[in-house]
C-alpha cells in the first residue's frame, strides 16, 4: 500500500511542471536552456555541455537536449560522446531530420567499419525503427481504449456496422500491441554502448596483461554483454568479442531511464 502511494506521489510529481505554482522553477530551467544555447553559439561548447547535462539531470530528458548535447560534444571533437548523445536522442525522436543528418555525419567520421545485419523481427516490424517507444505507447493506448469501447458497444448492439469496425480495430490493436511490446522489449534489452576513447585495445580477458585482440576507435557502437570488476565484455560481431575497461565505453540506454 505504501508503495502504491509512493508511486502515485511520484507520478503527481511528474505533473508538477503543469501546476501554475511551479512556473518560477520552470522559468529557471528555460533560462538555463537559453544560456546553454547562447554558450553553444558563442563557441563555449564545454559550458553548453555542462548546462545541457544539468537540464537532463533535472529530468528534462527530451530528445532535443540530447541532440544539442551531441552537437556540443561534436564541436569539442569528442566524437564518441557526440554519437552517444545522438543515439540517445534518436531513441526519443527517431524521425527528426536534423538529428538523422548529424548522426549520419558523425558516423561518417568514425574509423571502424562495423556491419550489422537486420534480424527477422526488425525486417518484419520495419516501422519500429522509425517510431519511438512513447509514440508506440500512445498508439497502443488510444487503440486499446477504442477497442474496448467497441467491445462494450457490442454488448448492447450486435449490428453489422459495429462488427466491421470491431474487426478493423481488433487488427490495429493487435499490431499496435505487438509493436509496442517488441519496442519495449528492444529498448529494455538494448545493450549497445559507444566507444568513448580515441583508441582502445580489446583484450582477450579482463586483465591488462591479456592479449590484445583488436583495436577500436571512438564512436564505434558495440554490444556490451556483461561487466566484471571495472571491465566489460563487448561484442562486435559473432567472431569479434573481447574485454575493455568499462570507463572506455558508455551504454546508450541510461540506467533507470527509457
Amino acid at each position: 500500500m505504501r508503495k502504491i502511494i509512493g508511486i502515485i506521489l511520484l507520478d503527481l510529481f511528474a505533473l508538477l511542471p503543469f501546476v501554475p505554482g511551479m512556473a518560477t522553477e520552470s522559468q529557471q530551467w528555460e533560462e538555463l536552456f537559453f544560456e546553454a544555447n547562447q554558450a553553444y553559439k558563442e563557441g563555449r561548447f564545454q559550458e553548453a555541455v555542462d548546462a545541457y547535462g544539468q537540464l537532463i539531470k533535472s529530468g528534462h530528458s527530451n530528445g532535443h537536449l540530447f541532440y544539442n548535447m551531441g552537437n556540443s560534444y561534436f564541436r569539442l571533437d569528442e566524437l564518441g560522446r557526440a554519437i552517444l548523445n545522438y543515439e540517445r536522442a534518436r531513441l526519443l525522436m527517431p524521425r527528426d531530420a536534423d538529428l538523422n543528418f548529424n548522426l549520419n555525419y558523425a558516423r561518417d567520421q568514425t574509423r571502424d567499419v562495423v556491419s550489422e545485419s537486420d534480424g527477422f523481427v526488425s525486417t518484419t516490424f520495419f516501422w519500429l525503427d522509425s517510431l519511438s517507444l512513447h509514440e508506440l505507447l500512445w498508439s497502443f493506448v488510444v487503440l486499446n481504449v477504442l477497442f474496448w469501447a467497441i467491445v462494450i458497444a457490442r454488448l448492447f448492439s450486435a449490428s453489422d456496422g459495429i462488427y466491421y469496425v470491431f474487426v478493423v480495430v481488433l487488427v490495429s490493436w493487435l499490431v499496435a500491441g505487438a509493436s509496442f511490446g517488441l519496442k519495449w522489449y528492444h529498448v529494455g534489452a538494448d545493450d549497445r554502448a559507444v566507444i568513448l576513447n580515441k583508441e582502445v585495445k580489446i583484450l582477450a580477458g579482463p586483465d591488462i596483461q591479456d592479449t590484445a585482440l583488436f583495436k577500436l576507435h571512438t564512436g564505434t557502437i558495440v554490444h556490451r554483454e556483461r561487466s566484471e570488476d571495472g571491465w566489460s565484455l563487448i561484442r562486435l560481431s559473432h567472431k569479434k568479442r573481447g574485454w575493455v575497461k568499462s570507463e572506455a565505453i558508455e551504454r546508450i540506454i541510461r540506467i533507470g531511464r527509457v
Partner: protein
Amino acid sequence: MTRVFRNSCLLLPLLFLIPCVASAKVSVSLRLDRTEATVLDSFKMVVSISGSRGSDSKPVLRGLESFSVTQGGTSSRVKIINGRVNSGIDYTYFIQPNKPGRFEIGPAQVTVEGKTFSSNTATIMIVDQPQSAGVDRGPLFLSAGLSSTKAYIEDQTIYTLKLNRQVRVTDISLALPEVEHLVLKQLGKPFEYQSVYQGKTYQILEVRYALIASREGNYSIGPTKMSMTVYEPRRRSPRSFFDDPFFSFSTGKPITVASDLVELNVLPLPEEGRPADFGGLVGSFQIESKLEPSEVKAGESATLTVVLSGRGNVNRIPDLKVPKLEQTKVYADQPVLQVEHDDKGLVGSKTMKWALVPEDQGLYEIPVLTVSYFHPQYRRYVRIRTSPHTLSVVPGEPEQVKASADFGSDKALEGPSKQEVKELGRDILPVHASIKDLRPGFEVRPGGLVFWVITLTPVLAYSLALCGMRFRKKSAGAVAATRAKKAANTIVRQYRHSQVRPSDLALQIRNYLNDRFGLSLGSLTPGESAEILRSNGVSLNTAEKLRAVLERLEDAVYTGKAHESCDIGENMPRLIKQIEKEIG
C-alpha cells in the same frame, strides 16, 4: 520476312559502330618496359598503333643506333569502350644495348593510308654491369641491390631483387626480410628479360621495392629468400628417339635461394635550415594552383584548386588550409590523394579544393599557400608556394523578376540550365533552440502506474459493463422466481378475500400461470393452460381439473354471466395448492 528482319536487327548495331571506327583517330605510341638497364640486359620496346588495324609498312624506328634490335612479333587488339570501337596493333621489339649512356629512343614513324604518324620518344639509362670477380654462381641465383647505400629518413631507396636463371622454374614465392623501422613497398609487377653474367646468358626475373626508413641508423637488409620448383632437363642418350625438345622430360624439385645482405646507412634529416612548417615530407615536389573563375558575382562561388605532386613519401603530403578571408566564406572540399609508383619509386599527388564565396563586391587577394619539404639530392629544405591569385567580385544581381526580352521564345521558357547540386562543404546542423523543445509532453512511463491505469481502465470498464448486464439478467430471473413463488399465494388470497366473478377469476388464473412460469401471454385457452401445466410436471388429472375450471369460466363469460358469481366445480385454493405441490 522474319529472317530478313532478324538479320537487320543483328546488323543494326554494326551500322552504329561504323562511324565510330571511321572517326577513330590514328595515334602511335612508344614505350619501354623500364628506364634503366645494364649493357648486358635486354629490354622490351612496344610500338602501339591505335585507330587502325594495320599500317602500310613496318614502323621506322629512330634512336636505335647504339642497340641491337630483334623483332618480337605483332599483336592486334580490338576494344569496345562505352560503345566506341578502338582497334590497334602492337609491334614488339627486344633491344640489347651495345654501350653505356643515356639514350633517347624514338620517335617511331608509321604510315597509315598514306599519312605518316610519329610516336613519342622514351629515354633509357644504360649503365655498366658491375662484374663479380670471376665468381661463377651456377645456373640459379638471387641477387639484391640498393639504388643507394645512403639515404635520409623517409627518403625512398630502390631495393631490387633479381632471380638469375638458366633453368625452368615455377611456383616462385618470396620471403622478404623484416627489419624494424624499414618499410618495403613493391613497385609494379615483376618483369623478365635476358642478361649476361660471366659470359653466360641468364633469364632475369626482376622485382623492385621502394624502401623507406623511419629512423636513422645502419641497417643490414636481407637475406631475402625465394623458393621455387626447379626443372632440370634429364639427360638422354644421343640420337634417342626422344632427343627432341618436344619430348624433353624433366623433373621438378623444390629449391630455396637467398640473396646477399645489403647495407643501408640512414641519415637523420638536418636540423639546420629546417622550416617551422616542415611536416616530414621528403622527396621532390611541385605545387600548382588555379582559381576558377577569377571573376564572380557577389554571393557566387569560385573554386581554388591546389595540386601538390611529386616523388617521395607522398603519403605525408599535408592537407593545406586556406586562412580566413574577410567577407568571404571558405568551404573546404575533401582532399584527394592519388598514390602511384614507377620503377623509381612512389609518386603521387594531393588535390585540394576550396569553394570561395565572397559576400561583397571588390578585389580579393587569395593568400599564397606554402609547403616545405626536404630534397635528398640537394640535401636541403625547399619551400614551394602557390601562385598569387586575385578574385574580382562584381555586384550580384538583385533578386527580382525580370521581364525577359525574348519572352515567348523556347529558350526563355526553358529557364536556366539545370545542374547537379554541388556539395561545397560538410558540417553538422545547429542546435534546437526553441523553448518549446524544452517543455516536456505528458510523459507516461511504460510499466508505470499511469500506464497500467490507462491500459487497464477500458478492460475494467468492459468487465463492469459485463457484470452489470449479467446482474440485470440475473435480477430479472430472480424477480420472475419471486413472482412465481408469490403467484399461488396471490391467487388464493384474491380468491378468498373477494367475491370472484368469472371474468376476474379467468384473469387471475392467467396471471398466475404467467407469473408462475415466467410467461407473458396475453390470453390462454383452457387447452393451452393444461398443456403448460403438463409440460411443467403437473399430473394429467390436475391439469384436466384446471382445464375444466377454465372452460366453465369461459362459458360463463361468453353466456353473459361474466360479472356474476358462478360455480366453478372445484375448490380453487385446493387446486392451486395441488398444482404447486406437483410442480414441486
